[in-house]
């Protein structure tokens, strides 16, 4: 299979968030615009400089048209990906291809959601499935819960090990002043939490928050003029395996396996080279599944890996250094936040949670019910010459 990608030819020059937690009084485009202006300003740019616009919001199917109008621009290229939480990784990969081809010069990827302030729950815009709805699934929690149950059955993964994922995320959140959930989380209180959808309690599930994020990308030859430490896109790949959980071939193996293999090959790196991992932790089982699937540990050993303290502050593989979807922010779709955190770690601007000498980072996205998986490999300027 030919799987060409313009390794290192494009870079992130701005990456920002806005309104993490609760941001009442704003609509989705207001929030996305706040984040966009911040991210553009990091690169000395304004909305009028954008000619490639990538935006998806939950409540508007024509979102690129609305947002272009809002920003006062007439972009050459627009993209409104609809793969769920992985949309943003896929948009970044398309942006890299379009920038490298000269189809646009400044790409803006933006997302905003006011779901906590307006609905107080996860908003779904999908058609109810005739094959699932009559059984009253608690979507999307029940799909991920059944993946967790299967992983526990096949590999002996324990509830305590799921708890270690939640606790590690909380410890990272305590280093992030913007994170939504910062109070102590102990294994005792985790284990005592009431079951919602076995084996999950609320402590296994991502937050319902507001929030916005934005990322600005340019070609590498211009990036250095706009950013002190540009974040180069070294590899990007996505895989689709199914839509509904009943059609997932194996609930313990996700499309992240192939997406990661492809992205690593494009980037000419391997898992052992990676300094930090930002992955889509909508539920505690996700972190275990995706670490296994990206090759940071063997299939079935993810539970032991997280219980060893490896992913928590001070561990050998910092994972979800902002506190993740579990403790920092999860405004319906979280994928763009993994890109922002990975980019900001490479830029070295993360304050108390900044990890030393971050050269290579993963920004992973997940959409649907473990349905769409996408992996970005991002690197500092020092990683460009390793090809």
């Amino acid at each position, binding site marked *: 299979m030919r799987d060409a990608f313009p390794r290192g030819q494009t870079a992130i020059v701005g990456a920002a968030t806005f309104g993490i937690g609760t941001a009442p009084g704003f609509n989705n485009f207001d929030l996305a615009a706040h984040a966009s202006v911040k991210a553009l300003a990091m690169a000395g740019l304004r909305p009028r400089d954008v000619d490639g616009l990538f935006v998806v919001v939950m409540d508007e199917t024509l979102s690129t048209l609305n947002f272009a109008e809002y920003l006062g621009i007439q972009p050459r290229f627009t993209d409104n990906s609809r793969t769920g939480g992985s949309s943003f990784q896929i948009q970044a990969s398309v942006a890299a291809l379009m920038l490298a081809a000269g189809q646009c010069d400044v790409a803006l990827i933006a997302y905003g959601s006011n779901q906590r302030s307006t609905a107080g729950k996860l908003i779904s815009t999908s058609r109810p499935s005739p094959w699932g709805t009559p*059984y*009253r*699934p608690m979507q999307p929690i029940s799909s991920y819960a*059944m993946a967790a149950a299967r992983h526990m059955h096949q590999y002996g993964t324990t509830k305590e090990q799921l708890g270690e994922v939640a606790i590690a995320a909380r410890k990272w959140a305590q280093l992030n002043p913007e994170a939504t959930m910062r109070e102590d989380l102990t294994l005792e209180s985790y284990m005592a939490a009431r079951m919602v959808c076995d084996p999950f309690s609320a402590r296994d599930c991502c937050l319902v928050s507001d929030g916005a994020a934005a990322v600005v990308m340019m070609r590498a030859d211009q990036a250095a003029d706009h950013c002190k430490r540009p974040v180069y896109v070294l590899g990007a790949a996505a895989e689709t395996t199914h839509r*509904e959980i009943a059609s997932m071939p194996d609930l313990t193996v996700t499309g992240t396996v192939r997406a990661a293999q492809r992205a690593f090959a494009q980037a000419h790196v391997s898992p052992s080279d990676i300094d930090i991992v930002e992955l889509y932790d909508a539920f505690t089982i996700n972190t275990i599944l995706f670490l296994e699937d990206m090759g940071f540990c063997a299939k079935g050993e993810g539970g032991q890996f997280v219980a060893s303290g490896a992913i928590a502050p001070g561990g050998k593989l910092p994972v979800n250094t902002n506190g993740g979807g579990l403790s920092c922010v999860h405004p319906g779709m979280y994928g763009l936040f993994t890109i922002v955190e990975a980019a900001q770690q490479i830029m070295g601007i993360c304050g108390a949670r900044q990890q030393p000498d971050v050269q290579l980072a993963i920004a992973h996205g997940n959409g649907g019910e473990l349905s769409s998986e996408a992996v970005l490999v991002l690197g500092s300027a020092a990683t460009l010459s390793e090809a």
Partner: protein
Amino acid sequence: MGDPLHPEKDFAAHLAAGRFMLQRSRETGRYIFYPRVAEPGTGSTDLEWVEASGVGTVYSTTIIRQKPPTPSYNLALVDLAEGPRMMSRVEGVPPEQVRIGMRVSAKIIRENDVPLLVFEPS
């Protein structure tokens, strides 16, 4: 009946008549669920309706917790003996007793005034 070009409608009509039917590809012999107009992958439209054995195995399971006194209920993925996997519910035992690997049999009930396929332990 038996017209493979109306998958959801035909499945529901069979179920209403007390039959749990699967599609089978005449080209490959493969069974298909959920019903559709073309076999996944091959695109073959030479599909026939055949009665399912109703025998299955629980692939995964969860309990959807409700605030008492509303009873919590089971949600399961069942691997059918014919191959396909489907979402359903295992009844006849408390949801806590539904286990991965449990052998189950299909039955048709009525819920909210429509026929519904559920399973019970064999």
